[in-house]
């Protein structure tokens, strides 16, 4: 049996190596234990380099010395030995030909387990070449541990950094200042490690030496501070499954910058440390800029449209059922209504409510408002009355154009129908303050105010100027070949800013806009028929709406461009589309966008390949737009690290109507351009290639029993199930204070043959217990809001997953009092009907529910139940039997 068998952990991670170059081959005589290799090429030959690299990576249990003799008379002596038994000095002595006894002192501690790959690492299993940078100052082990801890906390604020070394693991608790930070022993999985040996060596500078502190990284990211003939250097070895080479290289740059602050500015509080130096900040900021520049002219929406009208007056602008409107007709009707508005006292900059069904008339009306120099405020007739009233009051609407008889009466707000606008006002209207000839709207003036229902508070009005809409069209026209040959759908409510893209994207490029009436938008087969009949080429959809279209036969749809917006897109759902519509016949683009930044921000063209990889990338910024990812203090975060997405550039809105304080908080100075940027509240990460991963809302992170849970992550896992077509995940609480009752419910639509229990079972194999949905409910379709987004309020109560009865369970005897009481208590606490043989945990039970069951038992004067008993007897029937037995000493 080989001697190695007793030492299976002969790992490259435990060994270090030294290479010493000689000008001439030393006489190998009298050097026992020296392996000599003659290499038939000069030392600089790539083949010689490969030989050196292999010898420097080859571990050894005992010191191994290999002499590589090159054809040009040069030679390299390579010494390899385990670090723990022969230290750096011993390696030097071995290289000098001395025999050195091993240090047999046992290592200070065992090895810590490696931490799993962090999300920010973007590990890609690519090449893992080490990064080496020169250092000015060695510092000491403590200064590097501090720098590592500060850097790691910036990368991942939620994880205590545990840093491995050859003599135990350490952490550095945050102190008031960097100088006061002291490492202390720590346990737990290590993501990074430090090998510090920067002692000045005797004979330094005499010849060429190369020191390898490890032959493979002992920790997923191993930072070594070393000194050899190359000088004082930092070397970083990484596991490519944990980190991409790019991320590792950036981490090293940030670490070195932080370390300089540890050494030279010890009075700095850790929170004030800068991760990025000036150059790195500029590089990172540049990453969020698009590769193409925007060419746009300052012009208003009516001004831009006038050119189309002049160029193609007789082309169809709008198709609404059997009615077609040419560009000239559109222009003339809008001009007439604009006159009607001016005649009714509407002046430049006034806000005019528009509450009409999707129709040609609505397009005319929106254009009329703009032509009148006013700002349109779209209101969806399907919205509840209190929302309509809120918008009318909040926007200070003097006029609302509507056909809705039940539009709520609001003080100082007059309702008028589109028909009435065609005529001169009768009595009761204020005299026009100015003349009624149409003004020329300023490109900087507000074109529309669209209300968004944020996750908190009442809907707020976002004020968007003309020039933003023009920029959006100019940013996309050439890339997507938008032209008068295109036929667009208008699918979305005018109160949803996706419609801004549909209406003005179409009309300002001379296309034909096909109105999709509300009832058609909700019936996928009718919608499909419309797409086919009108030969629609540009289809804009929310992913939720598109999922419904995918349920019907869409083979004959002839769209050449599909644009997604409004919601996160799960790219895997696109596969059935690509089956029928290959990339070369239809381009599919996902655009991440925000109302506050004018519909779209980024663009990602999707392919079958990306869909198969379930990419979360939303691509790079549109020309004219740019983005940053920042930490809670507003500092730029490096690529890979998740933070808040900020958007600057041509799309940034003017602010929230009448909410200066909120506007001031969300629309902040752009530190790089001097303009304004919008803090989105969305979570994202920049990839090193400048593409953005959208990771959901920052506030979609919820806490379940103390664990931070990302609902989008659960949704992604569900969507990976081949049986799941679409999914929604939400948290339910019985009461606002009921943290214990917080429970995750999932809703899915399934492909044929799928079942909810199977979906949950599969998810249980991937998600930690606290992230596993308590229920999975199958629906025919997910309910949508008027905007085509998921309507969480319309989701039904969750279905209870009943596990199949165990065959071995005895036939249920007549229920006794205790069983009845317990069943009631379980039912109350768990919020679902309970059968005596149901498993507590399968019904969504957890330790906090168990505590509540215990309290309820006590309240009823019943014997108390310990948690561990519940784990042992997880059904009512077994619990009753256990309580009855009574002798159990643990009770």
């Amino acid at each position, binding site marked *: 049996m080989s001697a190695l068998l007793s030492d299976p952990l*002969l790992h490259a991670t435990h060994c270090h190596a030294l290479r010493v170059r000689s000008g001439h081959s030393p006489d190998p005589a009298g050097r026992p234990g020296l392996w000599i*290799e003659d290499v038939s090429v000069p030392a600089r030959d790539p083949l010689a380099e490969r030989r050196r690299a292999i010898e420097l990576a080859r571990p050894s*249990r005992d010191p191994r010395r290999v002499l590589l003799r090159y054809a040009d008379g040069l030679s390299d002596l390579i010494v390899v030995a385990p670090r723990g038994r022969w230290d750096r000095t011993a390696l030097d002595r071995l290289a000098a030909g001395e025999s050195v006894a091993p240090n047999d002192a046992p290592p200070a501690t065992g090895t810590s387990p490696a931490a799993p790959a962090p999300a920010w690492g973007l590990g890609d299993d690519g090449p893992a070449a080490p990064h080496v940078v020169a250092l000015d100052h060695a510092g000491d082990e403590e200064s590097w541990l501090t720098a590592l801890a500060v850097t790691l906390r910036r990368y991942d604020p939620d994880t205590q950094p545990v840093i491995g070394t050859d003599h135990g693991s350490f952490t550095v608790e945050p102190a008031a200042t960097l100088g006061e930070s002291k490492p202390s022993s720590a346990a737990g999985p290590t993501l990074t490690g430090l090998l510090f040996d920067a002692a000045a060596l005797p004979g330094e500078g005499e010849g060429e030496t190369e020191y390898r502190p490890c032959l493979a990284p002992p920790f997923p990211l191993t930072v070594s501070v070393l000194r050899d003939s190359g000088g004082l250097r930092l070397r970083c070895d990484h596991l490519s499954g944990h980190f991409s080479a790019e991320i590792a290289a950036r981490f090293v740059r940030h670490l070195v910058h932080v370390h300089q602050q540890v050494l030279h500015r010890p009075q700095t509080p850790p929170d004030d440390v800068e991760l990025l130096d000036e150059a790195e900040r500029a590089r990172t900021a540049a990453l969020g800029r698009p590769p193409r520049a925007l060419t746009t002219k300052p012009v208003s929406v009516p001004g831009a449209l006038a050119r189309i009208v002049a160029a193609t007056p007789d082309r169809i602008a709008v198709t609404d059922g059997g009615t077609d409107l040419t560009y000239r007709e559109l222009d003339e009707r809008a001009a007439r209504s604009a006159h009607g508005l001016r005649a009714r006292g509407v002046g430049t900059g006034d806000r005019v409510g528009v509450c009409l069904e999707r129709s040609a008339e609505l397009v005319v009306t929106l254009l009329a408002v703009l032509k009148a120099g006013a700002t349109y405020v779209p209101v969806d007739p399907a919205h509840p009355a209190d929302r309509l009233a809120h918008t009318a009051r909040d926007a200070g609407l003097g006029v609302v154009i509507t056909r809705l008889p039940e539009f709520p009466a609001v003080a100082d707000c007059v309702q008028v129908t589109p028909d009435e606008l065609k005529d001169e006002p009768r009595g009761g209207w204020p005299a026009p303050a100015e003349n009624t000839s149409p003004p020329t709207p300023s490109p900087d003036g507000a074109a529309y105010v669209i209300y968004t229902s944020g996750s908190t508070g009442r809907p707020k009005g976002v004020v968007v100027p003309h020039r933003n809409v023009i920029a959006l069209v100019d940013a996309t026209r050439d890339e997507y070949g938008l032209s008068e040959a295109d036929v667009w759908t208008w699918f979305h409510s005018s109160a949803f800013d996706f419609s801004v893209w549909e209406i003005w994207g179409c009309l300002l490029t001379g296309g034909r806009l096909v109105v999709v009436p509300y009832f058609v938008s909700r019936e996928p087969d009718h919608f499909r028929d419309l797409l086919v009949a009108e030969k629609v080429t540009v289809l804009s959809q929310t992913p939720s709406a598109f999922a419904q279209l995918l349920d019907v036969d869409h083979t004959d749809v002839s769209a050449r461009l599909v644009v997604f917006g409004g919601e996160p897109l799960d790219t895997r759902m696109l596969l059935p589309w690509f089956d029928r519509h290959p990339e070369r016949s239809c381009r599919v683009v996902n655009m991440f966008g925000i109302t506050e930044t004018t519909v779209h921000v980024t663009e990602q063209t999707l392919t079958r390949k990306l869909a198969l990889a379930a990419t979360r990338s939303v691509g790079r910024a549109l020309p004219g737009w740019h983005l940053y990812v920042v930490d809670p203090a507003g500092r730029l975060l490096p690529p890979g690290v998740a933070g808040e997405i900020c958007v600057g550039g041509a799309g940034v809105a003017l602010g929230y109507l009448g909410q200066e304080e909120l506007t001031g908080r969300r629309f902040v100075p752009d530190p790089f351009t001097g303009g304004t940027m919008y803090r989105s509240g969305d979570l994202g990460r920049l990839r090193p290639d400048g593409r953005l991963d959208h990771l959901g809302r920052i506030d979609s992170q919820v806490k379940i029993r103390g664990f931070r849970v990302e609902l989008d992550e659960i949704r992604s896992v569900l969507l990976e199930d081949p049986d799941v077509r679409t999914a929604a995940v939400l948290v339910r609480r019985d009461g606002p204070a009921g943290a214990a009752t917080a429970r995750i419910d999932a809703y899915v639509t399934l492909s044929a043959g799928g079942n909810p229990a199977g979906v949950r079972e599969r998810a249980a194999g991937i998600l930690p217990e606290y992230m596993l949905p308590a229920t999975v409910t199958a629906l025919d379709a997910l309910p949508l809001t008027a905007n085509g987004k998921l309507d969480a309020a319309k989701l039904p109560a969750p279905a209870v997953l009943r596990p199949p009865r165990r065959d071995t369970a005895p036939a249920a005897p007549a229920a006794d009092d205790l069983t009845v009481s317990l069943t009631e208590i379980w039912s109350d606490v768990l919020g679902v009907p309970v059968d005596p043989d149901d498993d507590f945990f399968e019904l969504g039970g957890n330790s906090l529910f168990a505590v509540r069951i215990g309290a309820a038992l006590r309240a009823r004067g019943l014997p108390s139940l310990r948690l561990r008993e519940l784990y042992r007897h997880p059904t009512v029937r077994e619990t009753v039997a256990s309580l009855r037995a009574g002798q159990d000493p643990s009770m």
Partner: protein
Amino acid sequence: MRLHGKSVLITGAARGLGRAAAVACAAEGADLTLLDICADLPGVPYPLGTVGQLEHTAALCRDAGAAVLTAAADIRDTRGMREAVTRAEDRFGRIDVAVNNAGIAAPSGKPVHEIEEDEWSLMIDVDLSGAWRLIREVGGAMSARRAGSIVNVASTAGLVGYRHFAGYVAAKHAVVGLTKAAALDFAPTKVRVNAVCPGSVRDDAWAEGRMLAEIARALEVPVHEHEKTFVEAQPMNALIEPEDVAAAIVFLASDESRQITGSVLTVDGGFSIR
């Protein structure tokens, strides 16, 4: 490079298939331990590999960029094999791949009932037991490391019979059996064992092989006639080149075949199809 940094040990490396396999592994970035008996064997009616041939194989490998360790070792000699393996482990840290290539084709050429006791024993000792001995020496460390690939060079004689080659056919069939049994034993530790079954390989001047010549001599037919017979028997109507077999060995040695174990890969131009 498909074998970058791997340490490969090959027996019977002085010439023929062993040399071809060694050079192919070197070209794919492997470092090599090359073993050969480097001596003639009483009872084998033809000269075996020499020290000069083994060093020539080593030189070819070094030219391809490999670090090479050579040793004279007889696969019938347990102690000698153990020393060679230990030396290889000291030099290269471990053995990732072991290629059981050493073997003899003769004494052969007579009906089964006429084979002498010592002729039979010699054939089994070299062609079968030799393979087992190397597996025994390297298998423990490979199992402990939970990695490794063993490639046994069998023959189409391990799949079908040949007249007047009972000892050789029996030994090569047994090597196939040994491959399957060892593959099962090592499967839990991810060590793989596979066999390559070459058909008739040309006696290439470059590789200095002489298998075909010796078989022809055992059958008492001229080499060119024997070659012709085999060219006709192999459906692709060509002899196998040493590089063809070496390529199969490289594949089984590399991580490309990481889910392949206990398999028998024929390189015989279709000979064993029918």
